[in-house]
């Protein structure tokens, strides 16, 4: 083939590729009409990954149609809407993208902490992101974004990150974290262990205190520490309410066969759980503080000193903190 013919072939190939490229993009953009779909990366934006099939969308109670009983935890945190879109590449790999719009930043942060593990790797995505073996979560503003691959191969993991970055760029809101976070003592805190709760279901998945909402929990946090113990902080309207809740909780602990050696101590009480872990619970201002797994009461009190100092230093009643 002479050089003129070669050039013709190259030009024709490039022209066809461009046509295909714009064809795929224009097919995509026909479906992107606002709502959550505006956050879906188009096929031409995520290098080799193209949208497969039409997205699924569910609002409010209809989340139950999508994930059945798995919907309850999302509703507990405050769920509004989800869009789900699959992506595939030329090698037959597949990635599922889910964008959850939650009621507010706290809800998004909370469900993010629920879903991420303490073993993943942090990623610079959104307000915070983390990648596990085959899936990835990040939160930004009032959105939680989850991407799932179907294997742990490098190509899939790279695809997860690429699509995630594209979604991140489309979400403009920044988001604020719950101020409760600042009350956890810093020393020895394993940051990936932090869980933020908006109800008993979230709490139960962290530690099975009770099947019923004994603490009347609507705003709580947990952190695990290198010393092998955990600290829970539950926030109430005021000290009167926290004290009342403590009294109700102490009754439940005293009467439950799952806990033994109940002992009231001043404005607090202690028990041992069925795994012989020591639990110390007290109220302090408008909070209930729980230490699980300390060696003794005095150790638990020492652990709570920093938390109580943080509470005492707390200014105002803003539920959220702006991220740095």
């Amino acid at each position, binding site marked *: 083939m002479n050089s003129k013919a070669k050039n013709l072939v190259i030009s024709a190939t490039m022209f066809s590729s461009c046509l295909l490229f714009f064809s795929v993009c224009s097919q995509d953009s026909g479906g992107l009409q606002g709502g959550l779909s505006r956050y879906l990366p188009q096929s031409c934006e995520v290098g080799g990954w193209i949208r497969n099939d039409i997205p699924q969308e569910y609002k409010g109670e209809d989340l139950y149609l999508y994930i059945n*009983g798995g919907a309850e935890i999302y509703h507990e945190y405050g769920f509004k809407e989800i869009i789900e879109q699959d992506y595939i590449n030329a090698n037959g790999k597949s990635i599922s993208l889910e964008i959850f719009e939650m009621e507010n930043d706290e809800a998004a942060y909370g469900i993010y902490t629920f*879903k991420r*593990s303490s073993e993943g790797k942090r990623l610079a995505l959104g307000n915070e992101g983390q990648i596990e073996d085959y*899936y990835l979560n990040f939160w930004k503003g009032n959105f939680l974004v989850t991407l799932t691959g*179907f294997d742990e191969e490098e190509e899939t993991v790279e695809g997860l990150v690429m699509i995630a970055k594209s979604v991140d760029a489309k979400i403009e809101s920044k988001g604020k974290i719950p101020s409760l976070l600042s009350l956890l003592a810093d020393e020895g805190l394993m940051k990936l262990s932090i869980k933020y709760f908006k*109800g008993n279901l979230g709490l*139960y998945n962290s530690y*099975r205190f009770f099947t019923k909402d004994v603490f009347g929990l609507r705003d709580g946090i947990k952190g695990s520490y290198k010393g092998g113990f955990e600290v829970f902080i539950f926030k109430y309207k005021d000290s009167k309410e926290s004290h009342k809740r403590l009294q109700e909780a102490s009754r439940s602990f005293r009467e439950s066969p799952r806990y033994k050696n109940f002992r009231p101590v001043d404005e607090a009480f202690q028990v041992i759980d069925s795994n012989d872990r020591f639990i110390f619970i007290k109220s302090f201002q408008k909070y209930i503080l729980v230490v699980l797994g300390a060696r003794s009461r005095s150790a638990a009190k020492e652990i709570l000193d920093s938390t109580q100092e943080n509470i005492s230093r707390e200014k105002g009643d803003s539920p959220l903190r702006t991220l740095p």
Partner: protein
Amino acid sequence: MTKKIRRRDFLEKSAKIGLSAAFGWRLTSSFFPGSMPHDSEKEKVDIAVVTGSDYLKNTEKAIKILGGIDKFVPKNSSVAILPNTQGKHPGTYTKPEIVRAVIRMCREAGAKEINCLSWLSRKYWDATGLGKVVEEEGANLKIVARDESLFKTIAIPKGKTLKEAKVMRELFNNDVFIDMPITKDHAGNKFTGTMKNLMGLNFPKINRFFHSGDAEQPDDIEHLDQCIADLNKIIKPDLCVVDATELITTNGPFGPGKLVKPQKIVAGVDRVAIDAYCCTLWGMEGKDIIMIKRGYEHGLGEIDLNKVKIKEA
């Protein structure tokens, strides 16, 4: 000569003379004439557990350990199978090769019809590869629309929380029922297995009641587990074959979550014992799971694994 009454004939007769509610408990054993009391075996095995990566072969092996598929599937019977096709994320649905093995074994036993039941849409079956397996093996995929008229109301006379269930009518067109869950985490109550899988037969709106709790205690976990135990009082599988190969232990039931890979197929008839066994695979005990405890308290099976014969291969 006595005539062997098939379950669907019994049901029709019972419905006519209005006996179904009064004799609910008896229905469970009459529903599935395939589950005749087992002959005393040389070695009676309650739970068969086979470990390994060949899921198809291991499923066959597990059922053989229990005495073979012929014990559960009579010749010319219709078989209903209920796999879990709820999610497409890894570790959330029953593996296709396990379902393939059971379909094949049923066919070998001479089943005239094998029906995979679901009120989830075809999309779920295709996304998991289960739809393809059903087609390839010549079984029927019976997708039941979420139309209340397609579900039969059954009273639960001893129901503590759930007083009646609405079970898909399609189930009653079969002589044998094989429950095929994947065992995994569930954010609602920390565990799902054979007992919870039966929610896949129940009308979705009623299932919503399971999860929503009562007016005083919405999202009461104990409410959910009691409802599941109540449901199990009126539906008894002839055989349970559980996918415990690769499963999520967090963020269940839908995932994605932390995957563990015990690579086990677990089979048996005692749902309580099977669930009590399965939850140990990620560090729990049957007594920790309210649903399993309730199942035991209601006489649905044995919770103490020291009292059941488990054969591992």
